[in-house]
Structure formats: C-alpha cells, structure tokens
C-alpha cells in the first residue's frame, strides 16, 4: 500500500515536470505537442478510491493548466478521462477488468494499445474543443486532436513499456 502511494506520487511529479518543461516546448511542425501526463491517469491503481482518483486527475490537469496558462482545459479533459476510465478498461480488457485482476505490467500489448488509444483520443478531443472553443473551427479541432494523439499514443506506450514492464 505504502509502496503504491510513493510510486504514484513520484509518477505524478515526474510526469508534470517532464510535461511542462519538455513536452510543452516541442511544437513539432508548429503546433503538435504530446501530452504525456495522462499516463498517470492510465496507470492509476484500479482498486483505489474513485473519488480520490477524480480529485488527483483534476489536480494534475489544473497544475498543467497553471504552467501553460490555459484556463481549465487540461483539468476538464483529465477529469473526463478519469471518469470514463472504467468504460475504457471494460472495452479494452474485458473479463480481466470484471475480475479486478489487471496488472499493467503483464497485460497483453494489444489490449494496452487499445486502452491508451481510446483514452488519448477522448482526452485530446475534449482538450482541443475547449481550447479552441469555437464550433466553426471543428476541422482544426479534429486535425489537432488527430496529430497530437498520434504523438501522445506512441510516446505513452513506449514510456509504459519502458518503465512499468520491467518487473516481469
């Protein structure tokens, strides 16, 4: 239990710092940035209190907002992702989730990719809709969602495989 708290606290702080100091400044092709801090939301222990999970996701989003002066867009997108996580888990892992026996370090890579892909697309769609906040720019929203998602998905999966699959 204690170990879980420590590792999640470290993950929270590290992902936040990497996000605001590195990933927000990439601007690949002018506007494409990965938002890897959502790995925290993906990897948060499943059996923990959901209220705590929602609050922590909100805090993480709000801190990213604070660093990038974006009002509350990251907070909103993170809370939506955190709330929708059980549905995503059920669609990607099926029976494993029903039995509460998912371990991200041992699951199949295919299920993991599905889970991260759907989660990232949802998060980025909410994020860019709120950031641009203009329904007439729907094409711009979709374009930014698509390109940033590709970037985020690749980086997230690499990071998850690198850092949490080593305990096999």
């Amino acid at each position: 239990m204690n170990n879980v708290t420590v590792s999640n606290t470290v993950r929270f702080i590290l992902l936040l710092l990497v996000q605001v100091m590195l990933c927000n400044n990439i601007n690949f092709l002018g506007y494409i940035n990965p938002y890897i801090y959502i790995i925290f939301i993906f990897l948060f222990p499943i059996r923990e209190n959901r209220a705590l999970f929602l609050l922590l996701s909100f805090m993480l989003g709000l801190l990213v907002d604070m660093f990038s002066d974006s009002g509350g867009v990251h907070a909103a997108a993170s809370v939506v992702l955190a709330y929708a996580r059980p549905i995503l888990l059920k669609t990607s892992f099926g029976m494993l989730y029903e039995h509460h026996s998912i371990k991200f370090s041992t699951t199949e890579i295919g299920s993991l990719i599905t889970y991260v892909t759907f989660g990232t697309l949802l998060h980025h769609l909410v994020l860019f809709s709120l950031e641009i906040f203009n329904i007439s720019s729907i094409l711009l929203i979709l374009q930014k969602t698509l390109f940033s998602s590709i970037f985020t998905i690749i980086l997230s999966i690499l990071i998850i495989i690198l850092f949490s699959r080593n305990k096999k």
Partner: protein
Amino acid sequence: MQQIFNFVIKNKTFLLFLLLLGIALSLTIQSHSYHRSKFINSANGLTGGVYSLSNSFDQYFDLKDENKLLSEENKRLREQLLNSSQNLDSSYIDTKYSETKYRVTIANVYKNSYSLTNNILTINKGKNDSIKQDFGVITSKGIVGIIDNTSNNYATVLSILSKTSRINAKLKSTRHIGSLKWNTDNPEFVQLEDVSKFAPVKVGDTIETGGESSIFPQGIGIGTIASFEIDITGDTYNIEVKLFNDMTNIGTVYILENLDSSEIKALQDSSNE
C-alpha cells in the same frame, strides 16, 4: 430527506465528477475573456520557480543570438545618435519639458508559447519591480504584448498572438490607423483591420504602433505589409502583416510604463461622463 441522502451517497462519484468538470469549465470560459483567470496563471511562486530553474540552463544556449541582437540594437541607436540633428548642448535643455515619459524595465522571458489560440509569456519581473497590469512589452525589434497578471516576482504577458488582443496600429507613411488582431493561423503573421480604403497601402510598407492608446508610445515597429485585400463591405482594407519579431524566439524584453497614463485615463474618464 433520507432519499436525498441516499441519492447523494449512491451517486457521489458522478456528483464529484460534475463538480470538478464545472470548476474546470468555468475556469476555461473565464480564460476566454480579455482579463484572464486570477488564480490559474503562471505568474505565481511555484510555476515561476520551476521556470526560472529551467531558464537558468536554457539561457546559455541562446547567448550567441542574444549578443547579436544587442549589438544590432546598439548599432541602430548609435546611428540615430550620430545622425540626429538636434543640438545636444545641455544648456538648452529645459528640464520642465524633458521629463521622461516612459520608464523602461528589462526582463527575461521564462516561458513563451505560440501554438495555442491565446498565447501567454511569463517574465521574471513583477510587483516588486513596480510592474502592473496593462504595461506594454517590446523587444528591440518590435512589440510583444501587454502585461496581464502580476505576482511579487513574475508577470504574465498577453501576447499579440492572441484571439482577444486588440492593438492600435498605423501605417508609418500616412498615419492611417487600424486595429491589430490575430487569426490564430501562423505565428509569423498578424492581421490589421479597419484601415480606411483611402489609405495608400503598398506591399512592404511598415506598420507601427499608433500612439492612440496609452500603453505603447507612438512609432514602435510591428511589421511589414505582406499582402492586403478590400473587406467584404468594401470600405476598409484587411492587411496581412509580417512581424519584425520572431515570436517563437524571444529572450529579453523591455517593459514600458507610461508615466502619464493615469493622467490620460482620468482625462478620458472625465470627458466620457
């Protein structure tokens, strides 16, 4: 009553979700108005501290460019000084009329953004350096933006690359005025609107600040005309302006305080009544 409690307990996750989403959305909506959120901005001790740490490493990589910029500016200023026809004999200067109108402060940019729809810079000067809201921010080449929020040691700058910014600008050659906006497409170009169709607009002409607002002095450079077209109504030009500044690479900025701004504001308020 019992049922209400049961309802709250049964749906407590959903209610918490709605509450948090509501807070986030209200912050978002607030951030789309001109004066942004007072609480969630990067002009506070925590974010400023982190950015100052990363900036202390970054600075070394830009030293060469910064040096080049400074020597270019020095050259320009020296040319102005040598070529000025004014008599600089101190005995002619009447101190009463030569009071300084603008106070200039130097600041380093800690955080810059240019890929969002509302871009904000964070700089390392704040209330302790007498920086307040609505001061103008420029570089040696041209304008950057306007001070928005301040904390004790840091301030945020609302960049000209922002949907909500409106800056008064004019053609250098003829003094026809317009207002400067950004259509969020490209950080190298901004748009000048509402320029009278009687103005002689030519590609390559210089656009500078208009001096109608008390924020920027007259004649700070903005950019050159890249292309222009007549508005749909047929009365005004819409001009595409290429910025002098490379907004993606800003290191050192100057903050301008108009020492007469309170007097100008009081005068305008009294004539509005």
